[in-house]
């Protein structure tokens, strides 16, 4: 259980990290908190020549408060969000989900950018940030680009990173006072990766009604207009409008053929809706 021998670099800014990534004669791997990559290195599932530790980059630990969104640097940790060192603009959604990620020792080091880039379909941030309509910004040799969180994940453990690119920030939209969200995951053991995730956001004032089925075999299933599942979002008891058959059909249409698997995911979404938070 020892990693292969690798070299180590700790750049001080994004430009220096990109320069290290640009060496195409080496296998270079970026690491932030190392809570997913660490185990993979120990098990030699990843065998890099060079490990680039990006936690020394000040810019990646910054938070920018903009009028309609908050931008989190890639190295903001789960505990930063849980403990509200990052202002919450999601009416409790992100801190609440953060509290349920793995265990406190993992949350102290694991980062939001690292989790998304690791692209495990069962990871919490992937599902809730897709539900909230968050975007990631990637920097590379040909400049920066911004894409939706759900588009950043191409499949299990595969992020949409082009040659020499790295994730630098995650922009989370500010929810309106009318917003309600819910999140539910099915885990066999507390803190383990989920077998099914359901997440939703209704924000009638902003015209948003989204549902996400996560912890699939691949990328999350995002229903960008979920009014047929959730109604117009203004009902007091949202779950009375929930159409489980329609949710099942949407899940089946995206390729989940096993009926038991499908049922677990429908139930996760129903429970997310039953536990709708509005505060």
């Amino acid at each position, binding site marked *: 259980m020892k990693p292969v021998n690798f070299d180590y670099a700790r750049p001080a800014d994004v430009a220096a990290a990109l320069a290290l990534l640009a060496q195409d004669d080496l296998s270079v791997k970026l690491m932030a908190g190392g809570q997913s990559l660490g185990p993979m290195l120990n098990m030699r599932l990843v065998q890099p020549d060079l490990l680039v530790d990006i936690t020394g980059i000040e810019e990646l630990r910054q938070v920018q408060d903009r009028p309609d969104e908050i931008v989190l640097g890639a190295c903001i940790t789960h*505990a930063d969000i849980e403990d509200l060192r990052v202002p919450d603009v999601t009416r409790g959604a992100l801190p609440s989900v953060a509290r349920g990620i793995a265990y406190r*020792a993992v949350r102290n080091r694991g980062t939001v950018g690292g989790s998304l880039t690791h692209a495990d379909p069962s990871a919490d941030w992937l599902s809730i940030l897709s539900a909230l309509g968050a975007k990631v910004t990637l920097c590379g040799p040909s400049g920066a680009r911004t894409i939706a969180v759900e588009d950043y994940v191409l499949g299990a453990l595969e992020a949409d990173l082009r040659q020499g690119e790295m994730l630098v920030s995650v922009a989370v939209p500010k929810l309106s006072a009318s917003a309600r969200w819910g999140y539910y995951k099915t885990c066999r053991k*507390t803190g383990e990766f989920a077998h099914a995730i359901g997440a939703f956001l209704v924000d009638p004032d902003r015209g948003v009604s989204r549902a996400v089925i996560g912890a699939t075999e691949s990328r999350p299933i995002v229903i960008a207009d979920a009014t047929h599942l959730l109604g117009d979002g203004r009902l007091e008891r949202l779950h009375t409008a929930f159409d489980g058959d329609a949710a099942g059909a949407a899940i089946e249409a995206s390729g989940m053929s096993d009926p038991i698997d499908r049922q677990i995911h429908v139930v996760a979404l129903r429970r997310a809706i039953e536990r709708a938070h509005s505060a």
Partner: protein
Amino acid sequence: MNTVTLTVNGKAASAAIEPRTHLADYLRETHNLTGTHIGCEHGVCGACTLLVDGVPTRSCITFAVTCQQAEVTTIEGLDEDDIATELRAAFSREHGLQCGYCTPGMIVSARDVVLRMEAPSEHDIRVAMSGNLCRCTGYVGIVRAIQGVIEARRARGIAAVPDGNR
């Protein structure tokens, strides 16, 4: 080889290490601090949990080279710590350990629960401690020990610090 310079249990330390050396191996092999136990070595069992800059950390998936200038506290460094002292007595009283392999990690995680959670229920404690596996006790004694320390401290007017003094 890289040089890592950090503080271990309050003392300055420096060593030349391979970057692949994880913190638990570094502490055990270089400083003979064998109180940090290595279990699964992929961040699941919690046996290797210690404090880096005051917060619980899995030392088997934290590379020592990334701990430049960090303050590391192992179980050996918690001898005089108030909460750890109370926990040790409570673990003995409640039979919170048998073989002892998980205990250093348990104490570090339990200390964090006592420090941060004001009045957790038994369920809250079980959830908070779910990242530390014990194969002997069945957890009942561990949970009772933690609950007892929390109740005693709150009764003495010592409040929780939700963010653990970060």
